[in-house]
């Protein structure tokens, strides 16, 4: 049986994203912790249960309207910025950042928003994350 969600990544198939490069560089222990603590549950949860503290909608600031999956590895926090779609059953991650502060820069938000626009207007601009 399929999971409720597929995690998609902003990069055409065959091109590795920053997120995938980072994930590949983790140790097996770190990678399995990310899976067991976050990814394997998120893909099974109804959308209504994607909620803080592991998921958040940005309701104010320059990134208003976007959402993020929050991941912690050791003492470092990471933000996987994205949106639900473009197809049903998909959450597309368009940007991956190490969390340095609570707020994102305006430039970060502009980059993310332009990628969202690109994904929604261009077919084949994403591929599934084989985490």
């Amino acid at each position, binding site marked *: 049986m399929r999971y409720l969600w597929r995690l998609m990544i902003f990069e055409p198939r065959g091109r590795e994203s920053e997120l995938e490069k980072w994930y590949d560089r983790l140790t097996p222990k770190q990678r*399995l912790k990310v899976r067991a603590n976050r990814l394997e*549950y998120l893909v*099974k949860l109804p959308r209504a249960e994607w909620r803080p503290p592991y998921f958040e909608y940005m309701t104010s600031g320059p990134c208003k309207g976007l959402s993020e999956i929050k991941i912690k590895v050791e003492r470092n926090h990471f933000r996987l910025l994205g949106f639900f779609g473009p197809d049903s059953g998909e959450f597309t991650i368009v940007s991956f950042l190490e969390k340095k502060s609570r707020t994102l820069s305006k430039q970060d938000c502009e980059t993310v928003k332009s990628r969202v626009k690109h994904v929604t207007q261009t077919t084949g601009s994403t591929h599934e994350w084989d*985490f």
Partner: protein
Amino acid sequence: MNGTSRKRLLEDLKNKEARDAYVGSHVRSGPAYQIRAMRNARGWSQGELGRLMGEKPQSTVARLENPDYGQFSMSTLLEVASAFDVALLVRFVSYSDFLRLVTDATPGALAPLQFSDDTFDQPTEAAIQFVAAAQVSSDRQLIGQSRYDWRRNFAAPHNDVILANPYPTPHSHIDIGGVR
């Protein structure tokens, strides 16, 4: 889970420290996701669940629903189970059985039915899978000696994960797709 993802998972599990961490993370974060899923399925607020758990404050429930909290006592888990009127299962299992359970994507896997809604004469898909897994475990015990012989002759180094059942049983249709 697609094929590449499972292949990577099995590869990472060959590392002893990593698989210990994997189990630990599931055990620590899984209840949090389940508590929230069960509470939402019943339409309860955190405060309502707290009251059903013996007048616990809402903040306690919020903490229990945080997958990064991960400090559940057995008595707390039993209180949660009682509040939702579901059973709590704590048992040691093989890694193949563990993977089968934690990757279960069937409806109800995270939010099981309460006792009064349970369909004992019509098991859920999750229950069928679990019983089948238990049957495989039982079969493995029955063939313990021959399995020992198999391990002695063919087994990989002790730190390798052996997920494939070397003795297919009538229940082999529930094989999780281990590396052969």
